[in-house]
């Protein structure tokens, strides 16, 4: 859609809004868009201290999938995966949704048994899943070494045909533009530094450009959630850990699927442009520093080369890292914060990109109605106090 108009303009915030969303990542933008489009809540602003997509939303590896484990989360991931299909049309922006299929390799009989167990839970939730033998995998990924050469040979795989990728920058601009069209003010360079809370109810926020009043405030700050907690004098059940990933130079197309080894913590896909995205494991310690390290790069590359020996000539051209706020049960925190009017959408670790469409929908529903929607019922902070932690897998 060629246009002579800028796709959106950053605004200076006004003194008062009905809803303030903190963080112009995908989750904040999606919540604001859904609120403006589907609910009557009045004036909405998204406050962002850096720029649109500064956090995980502009740094992730674009993988979308629903092959998780817990019955509490599977329906949510399934719906989110399905929502991507209609989103380009809805946002009037091509998100380059490509459900090319995800192959997760197993390296032993034990792992295959676990994958079969996972597959059963996923099928029961209505998610399409197949198990593959090494020969079938070889047919789909001819460049993969399924012989005995790697220290841990390929014993089989799980195939998730509806998994794939979405261009994350396209998703960011799609949501930002659509929110802006619906009247949302997107204000960059505005850092929330404190909250006004009276009688257990939020009244507004303090920022570097002055105080802004609002009866409802939604926290979607990605890996930075514990800084918000400190402003409120509370703690959240998260630890911030960086994740590093990298890309190679552009190559002729040779890899049709997203291929992963959950056991060895590597995954790779060839983008539409032709470069390979290589990832990714959380760093071995808590940190708020997003530099990249030789150790992570060399370990990831060594593992991937064992299975794709033909890539020995390929050069890594870029690496980067982003912060992930991780819970002990690998499930997010959404819904009430314990303070009236203040809602949370945090703790998405390294699985928040795929979840964006459903998060936007349900965060908006919760903010507008004050009732926790069924699909996010299990994501509350209360689960840590009533022995309802989610039994999710860590991949």
């Amino acid at each position, binding site marked *: 859609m060629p246009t002579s108009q800028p796709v959106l303009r950053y605004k200076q915030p006004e003194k008062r809004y009905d809803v303030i969303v903190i963080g112009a990542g995908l989750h904040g933008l999606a919540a604001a868009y859904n609120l403006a489009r589907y609910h009557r809540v009045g004036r909405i602003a998204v406050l962002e201290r850096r720029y649109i997509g500064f956090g995980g939303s502009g740094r992730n590896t674009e993988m979308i999938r629903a092959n998780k484990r817990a019955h509490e989360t599977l329906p949510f991931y399934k719906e989110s995966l399905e929502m991507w299909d209609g989103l380009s049309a809805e946002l009037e922006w091509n998100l380059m949704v490509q459900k090319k299929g995800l192959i997760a390799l197993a390296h032993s009989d034990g792992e295959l048994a676990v994958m079969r167990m996972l597959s059963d839970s996923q099928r029961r939730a209505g998610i399409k899943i197949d198990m593959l033998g090494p020969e079938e995998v070889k047919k789909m990924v001819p460049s993969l070494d399924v012989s005995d050469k790697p220290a841990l040979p390929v014993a089989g795989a799980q195939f998730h045909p509806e998994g794939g990728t979405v261009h994350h920058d396209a998703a960011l601009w799609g949501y930002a533009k659509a929110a802006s069209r619906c009247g949302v003010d997107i204000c960059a360079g505005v850092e929330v530094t404190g909250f006004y809370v009276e009688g257990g109810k939020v009244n507004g926020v303090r920022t570097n450009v002055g105080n802004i009043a609002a009866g409802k405030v939604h926290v979607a700050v990605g890996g*930075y959630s*514990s*800084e918000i*907690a*400190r402003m409120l004098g509370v*703690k*959240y*059940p*998260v*630890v*911030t850990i960086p994740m590093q990933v990298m890309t190679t130079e552009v190559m002729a197309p040779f890899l049709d699927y997203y291929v992963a080894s959950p056991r060895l913590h590597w995954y790779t896909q060839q983008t539409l442009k032709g470069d390979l995205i290589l990832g990714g494991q959380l760093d*071995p*310690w*808590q*940190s*708020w*520093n997003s*530099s990249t*390290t030789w*150790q992570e790069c060399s370990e990831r590359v060594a593992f991937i080369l064992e299975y794709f020996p033909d890539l020995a000539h390929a050069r890594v051209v870029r690496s980067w890292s982003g912060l992930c*706020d991780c819970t*002990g049960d690998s499930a997010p925190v959404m819904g009430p914060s314990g303070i009236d009017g203040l809602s949370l959408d945090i703790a998405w670790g390294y699985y928040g990109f795929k979840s964006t469409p459903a998060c936007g929908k349900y965060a908006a529903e919760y903010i507008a109605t004050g009732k926790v929607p069924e699909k996010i019922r299990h994501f509350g902070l209360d689960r*840590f*106090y009533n022995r309802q932690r989610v039994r999710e897998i860590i991949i």
Partner: protein
Amino acid sequence: MPFLIDCPNCGRRSPYEFKFGGECKRAPDPGADVKAWCDYLYLYENMSGVQDEWWYHTMGCRSWLKIRRNTVTHEIIEE
């Protein structure tokens, strides 16, 4: 190497020789209620700045150390 850890037994070593043990927390009194214990178990200060934390020297002397580190800059603060 993002930083080095000064082990009193082994000297300045790569952090990759260690297992990160998380921030130092203060346990509630034995008689504390369940909420206090849940807070202790599941919540974290998750400091963006200076914190005291545990490291285990897996590939060295196999002792637990307490280190003061700036989690933003990776600077180790020595007393």
